[in-house]
């Protein structure tokens, strides 16, 4: 305890130290730079002013001679002899303030001490220096000619007043020339001159706050076909130096080359670059291997390198690339045959439930490799997926460790959870899973907790003004609710322990028998379920309501999609009230459903009973109606910044379910389906 107190005091004393050694060290560094800049300017001026004046006098004389002007001579190194219009002679001394040296040194200091991190500052300084020297020559010549043509008064007036203004203007222009050349070209810049973001990179690649993302902005300018730098590298610079410079440039530019693209486009571009030969864009490929975090892109790079093992190793960097690819491929298992080449490996939990089975089938149908997970080794989804693993229940010890172990082995790109009760156990694992390349998209823990606790859910809907049946968990008050009633567990799932009661006595008995019971007024009307997908920003991407025409054990076995503005509105209010994102299914009743058959905008009475923050067992009907909620959800998992589409559906699509079988032999191997139609897979 005393050690902790002493440590606390020490920390406070260090923090309260007014000297702040870090700032002192930085100030010292900057002080050296400023001393250097002052020395550069002041020392440079003292050392060079006389030679500079002499050179400028000679240059002026050379230009005047070339121009045929013979009425100016330079009898001394720093003095002009000017013959005026009336034959009078004047001596004009080129003083230190007349020289361009001060401007040159100031611009040079800016280039050397502030902008030197950009190599472009060197040509910028050269161009600015040429401009400043040339402009000062023009100023001097104009002053001398004023003296030649109009006499000494004109010379002095022009030099002292017009010339001073001219000096300011050309120095400013010289400064702007330096800055212009040092800055980024349009295709390399991240924002245009109005501050609009032009690089259009995903968040992971972009530097924060460099430009406002304006969707209406045209794409950044493209470089011209012919470029001076290409000529210089091709014909002037020795090949080894050019190659070395090119490699350095590529390393620095990898974000320019690829960063503005989405993950799939980046992967395609890398495949295209590698196809030109590993020795051509080695630096870019190595930079991708070093910095890229998206497994899709890394998979593409590793595959491209693996495909070019025949290529002679002309450079050590190619060896490094191969070693990286080898390590990457050893970490990630290959996809099973039959899965789409560009598909992903997706882990699906709850593979034994109807929602899990529907998700597995949807993902397989889309060409993805599916790793099915379930607590039961007999879960049917384990047989329907590309691979299966048994995972303890989320409330059992070892769930997290086993899941990490499975993900480490199979390296799925994404995990889809179809058991809402698993969210709480998954939440702390998301960082670890992401580190293994497995992305997740879980709802906010508070939102999923509110959905799983029917009392909290009722309170949330009540607070938000969403229609919901009167609910109580207090057995003494249950009879005060209008009957008939439904009694069910506050934390139940899958219609387990749900009891419909009509009398007060039966209600009291049920409240005592059902564990953690709540009582609700039983609703009349037509029961519906709406499959919903909500974007990460809270915007509803789709809402597909369907009538639960027939249910067995809580699962819809016959259903029909329908269209209703009122239902959609109440469903939207419900998911907003609990703050859900991702997939969900909202269950409720429409009291007077008949008008909806003729008018989807009919003002019907809608009441929501519960929300499951996951895909529903009736998911196949939603998919059949045209709303690909599974594929869209997967896209949202893989790219959290993706702009997910709004999904529409066809109303009136009907579903009739039947049983299907999967057979497993004693050795665990598949047994052929005796009822399979000939010619089907």
């Amino acid at each position, binding site marked *: 305890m005393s050690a902790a107190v002493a440590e606390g005091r020490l920390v406070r004393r260090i*923090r309260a130290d*007014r000297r*702040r050694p870090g*700032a002192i060290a930085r*100030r010292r*560094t*900057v002080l050296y*730079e*400023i001393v250097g800049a002052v020395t550069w300017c002041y020392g440079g001026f003292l050392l060079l002013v006389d030679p500079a004046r002499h050179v400028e006098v000679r240059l002026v004389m050379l230009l005047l001679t070339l121009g045929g002007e013979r009425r100016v001579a330079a009898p001394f190194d720093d003095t002009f002899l000017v013959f005026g219009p009336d034959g009078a002679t004047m001596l004009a001394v080129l003083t230190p303030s007349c020289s361009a040296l001060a401007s040159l040194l*100031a611009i040079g200091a800016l280039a050397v*001490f*502030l*902008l030197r*991190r950009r190599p472009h500052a060197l040509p910028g300084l050269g161009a600015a220096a040429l401009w400043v020297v040339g402009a000062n020559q023009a100023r001097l010549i104009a002053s001398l000619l004023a003296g030649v043509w109009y006499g000494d008064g004109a010379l002095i007036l022009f030099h002292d007043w017009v010339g001073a203004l001219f000096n300011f203007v050309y120095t*400013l222009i010289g*400064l*702007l020339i330096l*800055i*212009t050349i*040092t*800055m*980024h*070209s*349009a295709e*390399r*810049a*991240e*924002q245009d*001159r*109005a*501050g*609009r973001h032009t690089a259009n990179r995903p968040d992971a690649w972009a*530097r*924060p*706050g*460099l430009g*406002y993302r*304006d969707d209406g902005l045209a794409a950044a300018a493209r470089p011209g076909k012919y470029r001076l730098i290409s000529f210089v590298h091709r014909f002037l610079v020795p090949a080894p130096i050019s190659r070395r410079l090119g490699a350095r440039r590529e390393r620095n530019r990898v974000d320019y080359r690829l960063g503005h693209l989405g993950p799939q486009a980046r992967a395609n571009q890398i495949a295209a670059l590698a196809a030109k030969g590993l020795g051509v864009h080695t630096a870019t490929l190595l930079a991708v291997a070093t910095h890229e975090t998206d497994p899709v892109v890394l998979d593409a790079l590793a595959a491209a390198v693996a495909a070019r093992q025949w290529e002679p190793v002309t450079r050590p960097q190619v060896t490094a690339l191969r070693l990286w690819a080898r390590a990457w491929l050893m970490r990630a298992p290959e996809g099973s045959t039959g899965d789409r080449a560009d598909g992903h490996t997706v882990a699906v939990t709850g593979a034994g439930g109807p929602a899990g089975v529907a998700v597995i089938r949807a993902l397989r149908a889309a060409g993805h490799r599916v790793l099915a997970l379930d607590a039961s080794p007999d879960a049917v989804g384990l047989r329907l997926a590309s691979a299966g693993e048994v995972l303890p229940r989320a409330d059992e010890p070892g769930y997290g460790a086993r899941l990490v172990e499975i993900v480490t082995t199979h390296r799925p790109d994404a995990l889809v959870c179809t058991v809402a009760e698993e969210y709480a156990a998954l939440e702390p694992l998301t*960082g670890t899973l992401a580190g293994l390349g497995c992305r997740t998209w879980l709802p*906010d823990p*508070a*939102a999923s907790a509110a959905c799983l606790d029917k009392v909290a859910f009722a309170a949330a809907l009540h*607070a*938000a003004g969403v229609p919901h049946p009167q609910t109580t968990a207090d057995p003494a008050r249950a009879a005060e609710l209008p009957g008939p009633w439904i009694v069910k567990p506050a934390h139940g799932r899958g219609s387990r322990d749900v009891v419909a009661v009509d009398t007060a006595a039966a209600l009291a008995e049920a409240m005592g028998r059902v564990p953690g019971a709540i009582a609700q007024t039983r609703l009349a009307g037509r029961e519906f379920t709406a499959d919903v997908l909500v974007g990460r*920003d*809270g915007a*509803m991407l*789709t*809402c597909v309501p369907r009538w639960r025409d027939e249910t067995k054990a809580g699962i819809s076995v016959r259903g029909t*999609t329908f*269209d209703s*503005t009122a239902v959609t509105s109440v469903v939207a209010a419900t998911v*907003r009230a609990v*703050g859900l994102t991702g997939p969900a299914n909202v269950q409720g009743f429409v009291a007077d459903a008949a008008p909806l058959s003729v*008018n*989807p*905008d009919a003002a019907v009475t809608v009441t929501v009973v519960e929300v499951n923050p996951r895909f529903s067992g009736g998911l196949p009907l939603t998919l059949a109606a045209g709303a690909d909620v599974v594929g869209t959800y997967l896209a949202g998992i893989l790219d959290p910044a993706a702009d997910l589409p709004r*999904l529409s559906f*066809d*109303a009136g699509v009907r579903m009739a379910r039947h049983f299907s079988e999967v057979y497993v032999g004693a050795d665990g191997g598949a047994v052929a389906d005796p009822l399979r139609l000939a010619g089907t897979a």
Partner: protein
Amino acid sequence: MSAGGAAAQGRVERHWVALAVYALVLLAAFALIGFDLTLGIAAGVLNVVFLAFFFRHLAFAVSAARWAEADLEAAGVGLESYAPPVAVLVACKNEELVVDGMVSALLGLDYPGDRLTIVVVDDASEDGTAARLDAWAASDPRLRVLHRAPGAGGGKSGALNDALAGVDAEIVVVFDADHEPARNVLRRLVRHFRDPFVGAVMGRCVVRNGADSSLAGTIFVDYLSGYLVNEYGRQALFELPAYGGANCAVRVSTLRALGGWNPDTVTEDTDLTLRVLLAGGRVRYDPTAVDFEEAVHSTRRFWKQRHRWALGHQKCLRDYWRPVLRSRHLGLVDKIETVMFLWVYHVPVLCGLGLGLTLLRAFGVGGQAVVGLLPLSALLFAGPFAELAVGLVVGRVERRAAWQLVAFLPAFGLSILTATHAYLDGMIGKRLSWAKTARSGSVGTAAEAAPQRPATFARRTAATRPAPKVAA
């Protein structure tokens, strides 16, 4: 910075005595040492001041050129693991053009929903701001709207203090109505409060409507230099960045201990910066915590805005220079830098004086200054241009923007006029008032962001089904 309300009921300060003392000292100097020598000495003193500020500019530019770009790229540490309860506060008055975009951006912030409260104060708006806010509040329970009665007083500070009274959070984050924060801004701001000495954290504001006018484009470049170079340099070299009034976070315990925002100033941000420092706390600056704001794009609005900034900042100098010099929490270098920071809106006044003396000298009036014209031109042009150039390069702006720097020549002249006008207003005791900064709402998500009743997602054909209704 933005104004959140109408005229504040602040006390009026007059400094006639100080002005009279200045005049008497000047007259005495004329009488004792002569007119020319007095002006020569004055010019020499000004030159020393100008050189000091020039080197300050240069130091900030060097520090930003060396480190700022790497800082922008540095990986965030522990962004997810530290999420104390946060309340986002926004004061609005007549902001119907921009309020939808702002609320939409706030509701999209990446922060745990159970630890985030959003409070928007409608400061007796006379346009549709209140109705729009109520519509948002009805559609999203995370948003709380507080309506102030007309004449409640206190301007933005009063509105924020009212909001503060009703929140239960560790950190409050303040935005202005025209701001649209990046999604991750809260996580990036609050991470610095792990350090118990940190009282406030400033983020970086970026202009989003630079294309609206040449003035807005100039302000865009000015902000680059201001945030990526000047503010950055203050943090890098002195660890004394300023809290800026929007896109900034304050520890609630610190704020309550200080008595909330000061309603007697029109720059409550600078005022709070000073009070945090004098209380022994620290202000931090995070260039990666970004939000996008709207720049004014008419000279008249620009004048009003900068005049208010100058007026408030100059008042802060008068209020705090003595406490700063006496503070036991600040070292000698800290005190020098803080006083120089407080002086920044007086320096343009001195520049005007220096230009006047130079003109007089050109006509043969006044003595030769010790250093001559060089320091003034260095301060007026070389220092700011060094900062602007580094800002453009660090901000990775396309090279055509360099020629926008020409627009800073008249801007410097304008800053001399606004600061001088504000100085005279402050000295003769003009009432401080919240000059509302008018918005255009020309760029942003406002138009698309208005809350809408969801239509259905079913595919409908007009011939067979009624058209979906989309209500505002």
